[in-house]
């Protein structure tokens, strides 16, 4: 039950971050998802990412819609405000929240149903505005809470437990995001925490819309033979194209990389992500290259993962509009109007 909090047991030797907090301080209530659910692994990766980034818990805002994925913000960072919105509408609520307070870090957790069907409109418009948030899609190709209907991301040929295989073209969030010019696009797998944590850290630090699409198998409805979003299928066809290391601003880049395969990109605030390119000719700063590569690998039946595209040059939402740096919610009301005498002057135009 979500209202049962975890016992706050903390080992004295647990590592602390720069705020003096342990990973335990970033946990939430006990998950009510099925045992083995990929989403719980994503939750664990989020906890680690936020902990390692030294984000003050109350400066994080956890946003979600409806579905299994959207329940998970209750399972991490209890000391952060959460907003579990209506189905498919997390993006608009986050847009308004970010409009009002640009100092918070926004993490949205959504699913393939929440983002690619009912919420498809809001998803694409958040990208268009370059809303400064980390948008996670826990992608399992299936509606879990309503007991196993296909979602819009189900692959052709994907078999449900009962009934006929899916024949409709899947909607791929990564391709959509690339087409629309999202400024940080990553794909990963819930079972690959080593890849996932730095991708989430990069997404949280990126200034602009950061999509992390995570294959997160549904153990109850979509983890059988014939499912293309199962653990077995994902592991078999999983293909890293670039791996990511996240380097905070204070730290030097020490890891050794092969000449020509490493690529360092500075993020907003001075931190860096270092890409280890497994495919030498893959250029994650070129939309055209990324798009072609993704289509080719998709046609070959592979799931391409890593940081697939990044654009650090585009302004995020507030900067595009030329808005003040201070959160709008912190401005005193009496500074927001020109006063009694000026009202008289304004009204002179209507005489």
């Amino acid at each position, binding site marked *: 039950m979500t209202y049962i909090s975890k016992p706050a047991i903390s080992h004295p030797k647990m590592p602390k971050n720069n705020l003096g907090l342990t990973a335990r301080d970033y946990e939430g209530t006990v998950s009510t998802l099925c045992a083995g659910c990929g989403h719980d692994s994503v939750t664990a990766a989020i906890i680690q990412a936020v902990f390692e980034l030294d984000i*003050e818990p*109350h400066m994080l805002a956890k946003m979600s819609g409806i579905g299994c994925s959207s329940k998970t913000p209750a399972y991490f960072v209890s000391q952060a405000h959460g907003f579990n919105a209506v189905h498919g509408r997390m993006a608009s609520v986050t847009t308004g*929240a970010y409009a009002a307070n640009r100092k918070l870090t926004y993490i949205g957790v959504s699913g393939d149903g929440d983002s690619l069907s009912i919420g498809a409109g809001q998803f694409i418009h958040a990208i268009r505005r370059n809303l400064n948030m980390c948008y996670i899609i826990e992608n399992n190709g299936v509606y879990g809470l309503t007991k196993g209907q296909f979602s819009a991301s189900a692959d052709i040929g994907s078999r449900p437990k009962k009934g006929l295989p899916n024949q409709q073209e899947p909607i791929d969030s990564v391709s959509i995001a690339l087409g629309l010019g999202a400024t940080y696009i990553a794909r990963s797998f819930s079972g690959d925490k080593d890849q996932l944590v730095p991708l989430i850290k990069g997404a949280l630090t990126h200034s602009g819309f950061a999509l992390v699409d995570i294959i997160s198998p549904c153990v109850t409805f979509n983890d059988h033979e014939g499912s293309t979003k199962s653990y077995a299928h994902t592991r078999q066809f999983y293909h890293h194209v670039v791996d990511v290391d996240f380097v905070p601003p204070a730290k030097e880049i020490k890891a050794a990389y092969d000449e020509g395969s490493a690529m360092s990109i500075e993020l907003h605030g001075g931190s860096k992500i270092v890409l280890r390119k497994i495919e030498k000719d893959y250029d994650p700063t070129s939309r055209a290259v990324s798009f072609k590569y993704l289509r080719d690998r998709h046609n070959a039946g592979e799931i391409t993962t890593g940081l697939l595209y990044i654009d650090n040059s585009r302004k995020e939402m507030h900067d595009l509009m*030329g808005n003040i740096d201070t959160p709008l919610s912190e401005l005193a009301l009496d500074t927001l109007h020109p006063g*009694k005498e000026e009202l008289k002057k304004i009204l002179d135009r209507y005489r």
Partner: protein
Amino acid sequence: MPIINDVVIKIATVNGTGSASANGLLMKSIFRMGIPVVGKNFFPSNIQGLPTWYEIRVTGDGYQSRSDRVDVMVAMNAQTYARDLADVSPGGWLIYDSTWPRSKMLSRDDITVHGVPLSKMCNEKFEGVRARILMKNIAYVGTVAALLDIDLDTITTLLEETFADKQHMIESNMEAIRLGFDYAIENFVCPLPRRVSPMNGTQGHIVIDGNTAAGLGCMYAGATVGAWYPITPSTSLMDAFRSFCMKYRVDPESGKRTYCIIQAEDELAAIGMVLGASWIGARSFTPTSGPGISLMSEFLGYAYYAEIPAVVFNVQRTGPSTGMPTRTQQSDLMCCAYASHGDTKHVLLFPADPNECFYMALSAFDFAERLQTPVMVLSDLDIGMNDWMVPEFEFDENHVPDRGKVLTADELDDMEEFHRYLDVDGDGIPYRTLPGVHPTGAYFTRGSGHTKYGDYTEDSDKYRDVVDRLLIKWETARSILPESEIQYSELNKAAILTVGSGHGACIEALDRLTEQNIALNYCRVRAFPFNHSTREFIDKHEVVYVVEQNRDAQLRTLLMLDIDADPAKLISFLHYDGMPLNAAFVVDKVLEQISRGQAA
């Protein structure tokens, strides 16, 4: 004896030919002469080409509603000539462009028809097709000015203000006006026996539309986030807010904006943005109209249950469905009062004119934050888009905006734990925390079943605990919302009760009925839930005529549902053809009821 300052001018033109500025000029000059005026625009859902009408009622008595007659028709649209001719009240005048002859079949012997060769004169005087069309429409201003004795100097002054730095525009416009003016002076008996004459009836007043007034109110209320999706007739509200913000909301130091207007992808998103911003603690609003409310309903129910402030302006138009987007109605009362599935009800404010649009925009944010719930301001197309003469607005700098029960970082620092939905004060309003303020204040905002501590629940008692407490909050709302406007004498056993833009017509109807020795009491509701005085008012009468602008008696239904008003006492006068209400409708209905009573 001439009839002074009691004349109705109706101008028939083609949409998109510049007639709006000509009509505005005409109305404003009469206003500047100190004479009360009412302006009503009847326009099509179209950018260019369809017929449009503008009605100026000169009313020395200062009435606010539209009239039921036409004294002077300016028939500039050949397409609607037959119907415009038929529209003139007996004894009236019709002015038309005599460049092209009108069919001889169309004539009336009970009115005076004046032909003015406006196109011909303008074609000779001006170059270019566009200029000729525009000038033809300015020229009729001159003709009307001559016929009604409108002061040409006042018109010149207005043009100078409009085209401050475009001297050639002032000159060409005045030239056109002179053409129309001189032709009338030379060819007709000017002025007409019905005419205007300067008076002192407009002091302390302005002429403004409700959407501009509401947009100004939002700026003064300190709203920082506006999210919207364009929809007639609400669009000009956000346009107004934007223009005021562009002038007054730029940070002097950084040159950056202290407001954020987001044109959303649809109304589903617009209201989501408002909730997100309000949840963070900013004052946030969305203007919309009926179809937008339908789309926003799911989120409005969420905001009711999760207790998030929101300000929504519904500038109502004619339904059902797409209806008539450029015609007025009050047909969203029920859909707003109970927007969304489940046991949901919402606070509504009902402005009667642009003046109240300004003040209610200010107070809507106070109520939304105090009550932690959506507040919908139900204006309509008549109020929102027409020019009304209203008392100028005052801003009370001593008024302290009500931000409601929001815990500060210091207060949270002293608390061991915080529970979002506890009724600490017994008024049904819990304490609220804002994200980013303090870790102790964190809670999980949800539309799913929750306990008074804010935790998820499927437990019957704990669920009921919260929804029952929301009813206590509803009663608190009833006690703090604006009181109904009431005129009461214990001599009268019958009354008129109305809402919003029905006010002007009802007030005028009361005067006309008094002239016939029929005295009625009056009540205008200003908010939902209705306050106790409204219930008492109804109880004190044998019959209450409920005047509203919809087919299904929605106000009457709300009175029955919310304050258990006796349906036997409530007689509906329903006006729902899309045109603004006028006094004649109300008077006729009252007389009909009285004669029916006498016959029985």
